[in-house]
Each structure stands twice: as structure tokens, then as C-alpha cells.
């Protein structure tokens, strides 16, 4: 009997991982300062084998202190946003849901603005105040939405509407603070457009624990997310507690989102597009969507960041690049999948 399940097949995962590795390596080889990709490759080979490197100490520092952490951070942020988006779409059974839906973006934006406005001169912490504030703001925004939603009743629609209310409230505070301090608008705006231009190993270390924990939790919960798509009544009749599952997976997804936002600002589009592309190419079961969104999100954002830092002399905001490249690609996938259906 042929296997008619939607499963993560080994060749598919392998191809995905190979593509990711290729993207990661190529992103390290190319950069704003032209070191020559053969020489960078030789340097990487020398690090592995302990041989002689063709790069000077300064050039090696560019590779290991600037490029590698930045590329890794792009991968981590992309994986986090894509897997959170997939989770939000599953929990809310809404294809337009994205990781910022429950106030993560608004909370982070408000907190970042307040830091820029109120404490512009704080420096010398181990981690800058901006990432910390953004992280706390994102978690706070989602937590507030959850509390408001729960006080109004159970169910995903209530939670969704609570998210809308909380997000507009926090955005109003942010806008107000900004209006009172117009000289900071540029700094806040740059942060909000998203980017990885200040990334180093510190940011990688900051984001990795949260994103890994979230990734493990979400991969383990993939089958439960499939059951949740049946709706609360049926999930409950199958012996599950849909409210608890939602709490756990939304907490995990929000943690990953907050970690991503804190190191990279607000990068749109990844959370919506990547899971949909995965669905169209590999199937709609969350056992496929969750792991492949991690891989696909990582590869997509590394590519987008590579464009952002090399296409023009100055750097483009990463959020602009993801939308500019992602939207046409998404439209193409949408068209071709529709044609295949009809």
C-alpha cells in the first residue's frame, strides 16, 4: 500500500539542509569588503585542518567577527520568525497570522522607542539596552494580549481581538512618545525597519537559547498542532486540552519571536511567506511545516541579508529586502500552485 501520509521525507529534509548549508557558506564568502571568495574559502579550510591561511589577521577578523556571526544571526532570526509564523497560523487557523499578531511587534516597538527616548545614553552594558527592552516589550505585549483575551473568554477569536486591542494601544503609546521627541524618530525608524548590521557573537549568544528551546518545543508539538486544526470541540473530544496546548505553543513561538525582534528589529514577511511556501511545496501537515519552516526561514533570511548588504554601497533595511524579494516569489508560488490544483 502506498504511503499516503504527509510526512517529512528524508530526501526532502536532506535537500533543504544542503541548500541551507550552501546559502550559509556562500553568504560568508561574499561581503561588502572584497576579500576574494577563494581566499575566504581557503581560510575556512585552514581553520578546519589547522593549515596556513592566506588572510591577514585583520581580514580574518572580518570573516570571523563580522561575517560569520551576522550570517548565523540571520539564519537564527529567519528560522525563529518562520517557525513562529507557522505556529500562529496553525493556532489561529488563519493563513494571514504572523508572529507579530499578538502584540509582539507593538510591545517591542514601544519598549525600544521608550529606551531611545528616555535613556539614549546608556552604554557599557553587556547587552545594549535596546535588545533587552525589545525582548521584554515583545514578551509583555503577548502576555498582555493573553491576559486580556482570557478575561474575555476562551477561544482563538477572542485572543486575536485582544491582540489587536493591545497592539493598537501599545502603538499609540509609542507614537505619542515619538511625537514628543521628534529628534529620535530616525533612530527608532531604522530599528523598526529591521536589520542585522550591529550583529556580533554576543547577539548570537543572546538569541540561540530561546530560539533553540522554542524550535524543540514546536517540533515536538507538530502533531498536536495538526489536531488543533480540527477546532477546539473536536480536539477536546479526542482527549486533548486545546487551551493548554495553545498556551504552550504560543509561549514558545512568542519567545522565539521576542528573541528575533530583540536582535534584529521588525522584519516582516518571513513569518507569513516561508510557511506558506513550505505548505505548497511539501504538504500542510505541521510535521512537515514546522521543521521545514525552520530550515526555509533560515535560508531565506540569509539570502535576503546578503542582498541587503551587497546590492548597494550602503545597506538596505532588511525588512525592505524581504518584502521586495519575498512578495513576487510568493505571488509566483501562489499562481503555480493554483494552476496545479485546477
Amino acid at each position, binding site marked *: 500500500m502506498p504511503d499516503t501520509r504527509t510526512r517529512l521525507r528524508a530526501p526532502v529534509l536532506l535537500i533543504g539542509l544542503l541548500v541551507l548549508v550552501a546559502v550559509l557558506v556562500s553568504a560568508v564568502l561574499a561581503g561588502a569588503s572584497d576579500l576574494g571568495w577563494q581566499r575566504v574559502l581557503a581560510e575556512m579550510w585552514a581553520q578546519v585542518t589547522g593549515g596556513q591561511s592566506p588572510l591577514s589577521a585583520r581580514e580574518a577578523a572580518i570573516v570571523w567577527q563580522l561575517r560569520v556571526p551576522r550570517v548565523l544571526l540571520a539564519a537564527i532570526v529567519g528560522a525563529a520568525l518562520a517557525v513562529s509564523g507557522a505556529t500562529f497560523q496553525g493556532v489561529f487557523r488563519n493563513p494571514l497570522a504572523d508572529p507579530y499578531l499578538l502584540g509582539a511587534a507593538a510591545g517591542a516597538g514601544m519598549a525600544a522607542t521608550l529606551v531611545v527616548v528616555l535613556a539614549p545614553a546608556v552604554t557599557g552594558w553587556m547587552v545594549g539596552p535596546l535588545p533587552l527592552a525589545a525582548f521584554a516589550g515583545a514578551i509583555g505585549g503577548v502576555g498582555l494580549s493573553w491576559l486580556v483575551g482570557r478575561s474575555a473568554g476562551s477561544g482563538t477569536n477572542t485572543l486575536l481581538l485582544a491582540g489587536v486591542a493591545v497592539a493598537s494601544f501599545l502603538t499609540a503609546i509609542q507614537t505619542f512618545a515619538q511625537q514628543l521627541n521628534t529628534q529620535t524618530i530616525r533612530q527608532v525608524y531604522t530599528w523598526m525597519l529591521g536589520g542585522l548590521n550591529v550583529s556580533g557573537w554576543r547577539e548570537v549568544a543572546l538569541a540561540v537559547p530561546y530560539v533553540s528551546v522554542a524550535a524543540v518545543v514546536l517540533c515536538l508539538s507538530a502533531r498536536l498542532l495538526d*489536531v488543533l486544526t480540527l*477546532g477546539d470541540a473536536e480536539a477536546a473530544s479526542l482527549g486533548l486540552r486545546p487551551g493548554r496546548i495553545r498556551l504552550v505553543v504560543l509561549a514558545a513561538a512568542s519567545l522565539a519571536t521576542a528573541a528575533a525582534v530583540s536582535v534584529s528589529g521588525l522584519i516582516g514577511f518571513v513569518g507569513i511567506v516561508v510557511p506558506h511556501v513550505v505548505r505548497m511545496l511539501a504538504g500542510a501537515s505541521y510535521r512537515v511545516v514546522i521543521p521545514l519552516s525552520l530550515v526555509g526561514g533560515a535560508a531565506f533570511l540569509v539570502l535576503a541579508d546578503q542582498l541587503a548588504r551587497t546590492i548597494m554601497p550602503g545597506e538596505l533595511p532588511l525588512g525592505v529586502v524581504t518584502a521586495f524579494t519575498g512578495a513576487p516569489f510568493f505571488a509566483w508560488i501562489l499562481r503555480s500552485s493554483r494552476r496545479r490544483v485546477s
Partner: protein
Amino acid sequence: MTALSLHSVRSGYGDEPVVHGVSAEVPTGGWLAIVGPNGAGKSTVLKTVAGLLRAQGEVRIDGRARLSRKDLSRIVGYAPQDPELPAGLTVTDYVLLGRTPHLGLLARESRHDLSIVDEVLERLDLSALAGRRMDMLSGGERQRAVLARVLAQRASLLLLDEPTTGLDLGHAQALLELIDRLRHEDGITVVSTLHDLTFAAQYADQVLLLDGGRAVAAGTPAEVLTAEALAAHYGATAEVSTTGRGELAVLPTRPDGPEGVSRRTGPSSAVPEN
């Protein structure tokens, strides 16, 4: 053996009671049809038995009250009136979700679970559609897939809320025949709501008539489905007759009699002249 017994069950949504004291007994292997006008509380009774609503009174399943959610899900299979059909999942994926009560929270399905699903698909004549996406099924195929999901649960009590919704006469009949066959082959108990009273009379061996959240009649189809009861509780005029093969049939009739047709909608009155 009694598969399900309800004793003065009250339940509803939030503080709004919908069902006010319903009692019923269904023997193992029986088929109880819950009928009644719109808003009578039919679906609410099913949801209460499925453990989805908080209830007062006593609900006993296989003689046991207050089953845990997990235990309940291994005995009771519930198919709502308008089930969510996850787009993009294959029929196999969907039916496999019915194995959830038998799996640990984070466990994966074993070969045993897969063979149960294959067997259920075979039995419901869905094998050829096993790899088809749920959103590409016709109405009849979809209802069979929902039934397959409930059967994969290996439940002994099936709660089916309007299983024939959206099906034409032939497909509705085929589905009910299928349910009846499974009931006889496996000895499972069926409790279903049914809009179509003729189907209720033909397939169920007991009928419970609800009106305004109260049980107003219970018994065999012939005892419950009378012209008087239909008039009193549905506000309907109908004849209850017996077919040549001895089956009960409920036939609606025009309140004013057949000649009322020409009197009200005849050509002379349809186009007012002035």
C-alpha cells in the same frame, strides 16, 4: 448492558441553560435518534455526552460517571454537525488524527495505528482516496472521511450530529446504511441527531423528541413520530404512514390541502391588475 444513560441532564453555554432535564437510556448496540425542531437542544445533548459542556445531572457511559477526558475519548467518538476540515491534509492524515486518544501527548503513531487507519479506509471504501486532499473531496466523501476519523478512534459509542448534512438522498441513504452495517458488525452504539424524520424512523430503534430543551417523547419511532406530535412540537402538518414494506415514512402535507396551491398562487392572483 447500557451504553449510555442520561438522568435529568441540564446543560448549556455559559450561564444560559439550553437543555433542562433530559433522561434517556441507550442499550449497547442500539441507535438513538434525537429529533426536534430547530433550537430544541439536540446538538447540546450530544456535546454534553461528548464531555464538551459542563452538565448537571448524571451522564453514565458504559455504567461509569465522571470519566476523565482521556478515558472518555477512548469510548466516545464525536462528529460535529459542521466539522472543520483541515485544508491540505490528506484523507490518511485526517483519519490518523482519530488515533490521538490512544497516543501519549508527544508520541508518534506506530505501525499498529497506521494499520487501523488502513483497515478503516478499506472498510469505508476510501482506500482509493487515501492520498487525496481533504478539501478536494465531494460532500459524500467528506462525510465518510469524518466517519472514518471517528471509527479510527475505536470508540464504542458514536455521537453523530446530523451526519447527512449537505448530502443528497442517495448519498445520505448510503451513509446511514454504512453506519447501520458498522453498528451490527461491531456492536457499537450510535446516538445521532437527524433532521430527516423518515430516516430517523427507518434507522433508529429509539427516538427521543426534544422541544425547548425538554424531552417531550421517547420510545420507538412509531410511538414518538405521530402526526399529533409533529403538529404540537414542529408546528408542521404531516402524515405518518407505513410503506408497502412496513417502514414508517413522514410525509409533509400542505396546511390548506392541495387545492390551496391554485388558490394562492394561480395566475389570476399572481399578477395584480389595476
